[in-house]
């Protein structure tokens, strides 16, 4: 993966986090926010382009940003997204993400797994009440799954601009 592509993906997550938090501030009702950083990790990991170390490094930076914006302990989402990237890369040859439905199902399952991992690692923060935090997992997974096809389409667009040859993209 080129440095340019990595930078664009990191900037995309940065903008996504800003937009998500700002729009949430305007809405009169409370809603679960999609896991923007996880979507980019899934996109990169399932796409399979680039080496594992570069992908993990990008996932760690995305996790760092997610931690910073969410106010979570530093390293928490960096670790979960790093693990997510490893798993996404491992599954990339077995999963088909050709249609929006595929994308939604994969995002749903991945976000649920990510949420469970997040709660498990940070269970000490929930002071013995981690089970109630688990209630957040389904709604966050659904919110992320609904946004996933649009996010993937946007990221593919960005990728095409960076690399005009469509044969270079495995997920067309």
């Amino acid at each position, binding site marked *: 993966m080129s440095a340019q592509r990595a930078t664009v993906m990191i900037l995309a997550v*940065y903008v996504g*986090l*800003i*937009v*998500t*938090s*700002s729009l*949430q*501030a*305007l*809405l*009169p*009702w*409370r809603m*679960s*926010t999609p*896991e*923007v950083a996880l979507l980019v990790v899934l996109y990169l990991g399932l796409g399979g382009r680039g*080496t*594992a*170390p570069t992908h*993990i*490094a990008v996932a*760690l930076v995305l*996790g760092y*940003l*997610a931690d*910073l*914006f*969410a*106010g*979570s*302990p*530093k*390293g*928490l*989402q*960096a*670790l979960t997204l*790093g*693990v997510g990237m*490893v798993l996404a890369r491992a599954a990339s040859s077995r999963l088909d993400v050709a249609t929006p439905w595929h994308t939604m199902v994969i995002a749903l399952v991945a976000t649920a797994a990510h*949420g469970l991992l*997040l*709660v498990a*690692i*940070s269970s*000490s*923060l*929930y*002071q013995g*009440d*981690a089970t*109630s*935090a688990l*209630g*957040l997992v*389904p*709604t*966050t997974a659904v919110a992320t799954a609904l946004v996933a096809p649009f996010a993937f389409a946007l990221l593919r667009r960005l990728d095409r601009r960076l690399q005009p040859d469509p044969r270079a993209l495995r997920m067309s």
Partner: protein
Amino acid sequence: MTLTRRARELVIVATLLAVPVLFLRANLAATEHLNVVDRAILRVSAPLQSGLTGLARGVGNVWTRYIALVHLREDNARLVDENARLRAELVTAQNGAVRTADLEKLLGLRGSLQFDTLSARVIAVETSAFFRVVRVRLDRGEADVKPGMAVLASAGVVGRVQRVFGPYCDVLLAADPKSSIDVVVGRTGGRGVLKGIAGSDRYRTRIEYLERKDEAAEGDLVVTSGLGGNFPRDLPVGKIIKVDKRGFGLYQNAEVQPVVDFGKVRDVLVVVPRESQPIGPLPEPPAGQGAGGDRR
């Protein structure tokens, strides 16, 4: 890919994954620490969030006015439009009145407090459902605000400052599981610790370590105890909606509905205790509005 290269990649991946583990071990307990890079990123991001929020509000206003002014060809349409515009204006005026009333209450609260406060405006709300933090823009800089300081809305307690960067800070909501606030039940005087409960449907809190002998009941007002040094006494926190005395032991649990609707908070006050003036009780509230007036 050769075996050597694969092994080398595995070692690099394992090393990279070890980095966040080490960071996490160091930062799990203290999330308020920010280094130079963190500060720089947050200081750049906060104005963008503020600008985007302002822009979206502006676009919303323009859209409302546009809708109210189109279709002016015929008298009937004009009258319908005028009616719609007047209705929209009425809604805007009502919203303005609500906001003015809210600000007046904040001003009243500010005047009644025995210590300094800073006004602040909410510019961003939680980016992760698992961590309940809102970002506010202060009217003064980081020299005046420190982590741990109490944050109030006109209705009551919002939370406490988690971390500060420039003229912005993150506020840990009282509904976050990491939050704990020393409180008393207004009617009985029973003390406990208010903690947040994670949940997707609404913001929830509960009182822990509330002695079983304290006859807390649904509808009881919960206020701050003033102990712990951050929150002034007698600030409304919430109302008890459920008391759980199941099982044995010294304590009972009570679920509390916060008085502040965290999703709708727009303006807040940050309590800045003076060195020479420790946080003390509020002046006696008017009859019928007492936060803890009927305490036993």
